[in-house]
């Protein structure tokens, strides 16, 4: 992890910037379906800073978990013990996710493509003889389909950001605008892809992921060089506001005690 340039007061890592940016994306959100890892970090950071009432929903069946630290797994005991309710796994998918009750779904990705389709299944185009066998779908296909919107958090690399994913585990915008509607997917799809370099958003006309925000100290060239397609840059490109001291303090308080970073 590279260390980003110092401001007058604080330094931060690119991963910290990514978590902070992801956390901020949860402003005004009621309920968020959270995966383990970066999404969980961001969601818990949001709950500790600007969104104290944010409802965290985990696919293990916990509704409204309020863990003290970061859970190490999706079925951590602290998630159950601090939840408003613990329901069965069938219920969490059928009653809570499927009808579109959850505003935001937070996903990671092994591969993500130009249209924000996500692959967490296999690397390599031959499913029967993959180059790398990945964990698989988990809750992601239906999170991507049914949440009001989806936020993807993933570190940039040419291996991860590809023109076309080897396997569509979770649908972003398919092959472009209108595909979600044609497929009958209820949610609006990925609204933001937050990386360690910046933020990509779907172009309103084409749904192609476009760079809309650069994290402080990152150049457009740096952001573009680790993307496997010719990344477009928004005319309204902005710079992501740097992490505040409070954000960093809370984030480090969350991640350090468990030694998970």
């Amino acid at each position: 992890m590279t260390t980003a340039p110092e401001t007058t007061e604080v330094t931060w890592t690119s991963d910290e910037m990514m978590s902070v940016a992801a956390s901020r994306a949860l402003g005004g959100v009621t309920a968020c379906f959270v995966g383990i890892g970066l999404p969980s970090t961001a969601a818990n950071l949001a709950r500790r800073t600007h969104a104290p009432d944010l409802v965290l929903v985990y696919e293990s069946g916990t509704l409204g978990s309020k863990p003290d630290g970061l859970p190490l797994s999706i079925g951590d005991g602290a998630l159950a013990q601090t939840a408003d309710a613990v329901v069965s796994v069938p219920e969490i998918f059928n009653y809570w996710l499927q009808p579109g009750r959850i505003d935001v779904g937070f996903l990671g990705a092994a591969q993500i493509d130009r249209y924000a389709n996500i692959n967490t299944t296999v690397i390599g185009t031959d499913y029967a003889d993959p180059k790398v066998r990945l964990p698989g779908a988990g809750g992601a296909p239906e999170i991507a389909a049914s949440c009001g919107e989806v936020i993807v958090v993933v570190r940039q690399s040419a291996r991860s950001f590809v023109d076309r994913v080897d396997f569509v585990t979770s649908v972003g915008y398919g092959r472009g605008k209108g595909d979600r509607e044609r497929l009958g997917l209820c949610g609006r799809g990925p609204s933001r892809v937050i990386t360690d370099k910046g933020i990509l958003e779907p172009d309103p006309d084409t749904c192609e992921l476009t760079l809309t925000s650069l994290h402080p100290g990152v150049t457009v060239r740096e952001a573009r060089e680790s993307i496997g397609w010719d990344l477009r840059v928004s005319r309204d490109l902005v710079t992501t506001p740097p992490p505040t001291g409070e954000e960093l303090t809370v984030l480090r308080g969350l991640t350090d005690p468990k030694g998970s970073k």
Partner: protein
Amino acid sequence: MASIVSLHDGVRDLVRDGDVVAMEGFTHLIPFAAGHEIIRQGRRDLTLVRMTPDVIYDQLIGAGCARKLVFSWGGNPGVGSLHRFRDAVQNDWPVPLEIEEHSHAGMANRYVAGASGLPFAVLRGYTGTDLVRHTENIKTVTCPFTGEVLTAVPPVNPDVAIIHAQRADRSGTVQMWGITGVQKEAVLAAKRSLVTVEEIVDELTPVPGGVVLPSWVVTAVAEVPGGAAPSYAQGYYERDNDAYKAWDAVGRDRDTFTTWLSDTLGVGARA
């Protein structure tokens, strides 16, 4: 009514070569001890079903017990990949492993259909994904009221379901609490069931969040304290996160794994 048995006898009597075996437990209450007993007794050609195959299935697969895996997410939670699973899929070691993969929503609904005695479940799921191209067990069904096309999946009806719970009473009625995942459905969907428990007690006092499986829908109960470790049993012990991390190095290498199998479970490499 359930029989109270030893773990050895429960596995011997209920798990047969070639069976479809579902071991469930969503991070919590994973039936590790029962999985180890299956390895010890050398079961072969199992179709292993599990939403989240993790370390226990990595061990069963590495030990050569399985010919097929039906699942929705296979990994070492919070750590990384399952190397025995990868080695079986990518290199057929120790034996080839056929896979059938789903999403969590799909698997959960397959158990629900199984528990409900239905030949399929309906959901909004899989649409637009490549999962559909790789299994016959994902089809469509048309709503007879609206004409909308939805996804259908067939039930899972395992030959035997194995779960771990906190407690049972002497009649074999089982009680669990905390995150209980899809375990009730797995037991109700299965032809036979084996439940390992932390303790057998005289009386089951109701607890918040408690899920009860009455004795008459359970085949056998075995008292196996610590039977979910290194996963956790809420109210009994915590998750041993270090053991999950340590598994990464063991599972990564065939020889290290084979040594582990021999040292820990007393099992020689068979494949």
